[in-house]
């Protein structure tokens, strides 16, 4: 251990207050009891493959596939077992976030929660709503095509607007990851999100949510108008994604 500054210096004949003696001692005690640094932990001091820390340290991982019930609760998918939906459809959903995956974990002490989420989703067209936007749109799109050339579709493309879905990851209500504006032009697509948040002891809620909407141009130089997406909607299939929750206390 190197030199440590001592808060109080005493001289001969001085009346010493007990609290000052204790304060001086604390400097050493705190140093030795935990504040290890390179002076008392030399380079290469750790030679074990891993060191098991005690005193409440832990590193747990919880895994679930989306839409499939384990010990988690996925209320967005309906009842458990055979009654659970195999697909979660956003058809005719309003412009707001809906839960597609969730988990509640309980931790004994203040901890760090690290979450990974990934899934596949697919866009589908509602034929009537798509045709109401533009004749021929549904037929073209359902043939897995959206002509960006000189056809009637492209000439009126600005009028169609864009259809998007936003994904976000929340821990205890706080948005820890936002993946915005995945376009319907990628008919099948995948999303990956990661987030970290320190949490207090007790229950913590993890939510994966999605919001679909349509943006329509209001003219040059003007903000786009957000509308409900009727012509196109996403679905998420059970099992085609996972939520991995790591909880650690060091």
């Amino acid at each position, binding site marked *: 251990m190197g030199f440590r500054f001592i808060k109080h210096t005493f001289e001969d004949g001085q009346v010493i207050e007990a609290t000052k003696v204790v304060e001086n001692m604390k400097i050493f005690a705190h140093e030795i009891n935990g504040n290890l640094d390179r002076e008392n932990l030399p380079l290469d001091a750790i030679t074990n493959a891993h060191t098991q820390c005690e005193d409440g340290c832990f590193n747990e991982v919880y895994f679930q596939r989306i839409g499939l019930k384990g010990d988690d609760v996925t209320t967005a998918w309906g009842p458990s077992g055979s009654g659970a939906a195999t697909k979660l459809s956003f058809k005719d959903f309003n412009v707001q976030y809906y839960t597609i995956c969730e988990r509640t974990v309980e931790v004994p002490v203040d901890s760090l929660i690290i979450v990974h989420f990934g899934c596949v989703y697919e866009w589908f067209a509602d034929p009537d709503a798509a045709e109401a936007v533009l004749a021929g749109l549904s037929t073209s799109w359902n043939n897995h095509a959206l002509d960006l050339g000189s056809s009637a579709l492209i000439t009126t493309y600005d009028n169609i607007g864009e259809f998007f879905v936003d994904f976000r990851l929340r821990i205890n209500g706080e948005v820890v990851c936002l993946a915005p504006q995945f376009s319907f*032009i990628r008919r099948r697509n995948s999303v990956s999100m990661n987030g970290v948040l320190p949490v207090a002891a007790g229950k913590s809620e993890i939510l994966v949510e999605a919001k679909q909407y349509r943006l329509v141009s209001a003219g040059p130089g003007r903000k786009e108008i957000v509308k409900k997406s009727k012509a196109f909607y996403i679905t998420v299939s059970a099992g085609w994604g996972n939520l991995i929750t790591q909880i650690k206390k060091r």
Partner: protein
Amino acid sequence: MIISIPETIKEGQEITADDLNQFATEVNNISDSSIPTGTNRLNGENIRNEGIDRRNITRHEVQRVGLEKGSTGAFNNGDGIHYRFGPHDDRSPPVWYKSEWKLPSPLHLQHPENFTTLPHNLRKDLYPLRVPGYTNSNWFIVNLQPMLEDIPVEKGDKVLVTCSFAFSVFPLDTYSNNLVNSATDPYGGYETRFRLRSRVKISGSPFASSGWTTAETMPGTFRMFNTVASSNVMSGGYRWVGTQNTCTIVGYQEIERYQEYFEVYLQSYCIRSNRYDPKDAVLRIKAYNIFVKIIK
């Protein structure tokens, strides 16, 4: 050992030599036995909650410790043992921590006989993978060798795999304007699908044969990408727009009894999105890297 401050040192109370000596003795004892300068001196007694953090141990020191571990190719940051493949882009060879690790050629193919020589006009693509014809019996026809293999594990280990890469899919003759698919057909543009697969090596089990298990998909790691866009940038009509994107997949597996080694694969295949037929597509995977973290 924990250093304590004598409780008798209080206002109005006599301080004895014993009180001070007790403190000095405890400090001296630390220097004899518990300062972690030797092998195995670091333990639960001198590490407690929040006792060591990044202020105390720099990243360099942690990595140095791991790299000095020797032949495993792993590094340990105190949180788990990490194995890394990559990062790799399409203009440099893979970077490995330890040279003795087996180095697969960049995305080296498990069934090279299924792949034909690529035309010279794709020479800018250093590691293209041509997707052969779709068959019902084997959807995942681009089957990469394990990106990380023979990772030692033991019962109760938690394995986190994070795989990230960029990819592109184009008609085979993008540059020469032949054999491309017309966007007027109802087959759709190219669609790629990926998944992580893993397998473990079993030894000494009374219930299962020793050796490697059949590789299985890591749950929830299936991913898909396609596009509905087409373009008439080439002469001769509209053509499907290729797909370029990035992908990150995280997989998880718990190691069970008698499982001693772990391997992980990235697999993919390519079709046209409205028909199971790749029609001479080239799928190129690049800038890939994969991390495997073993949490003890």
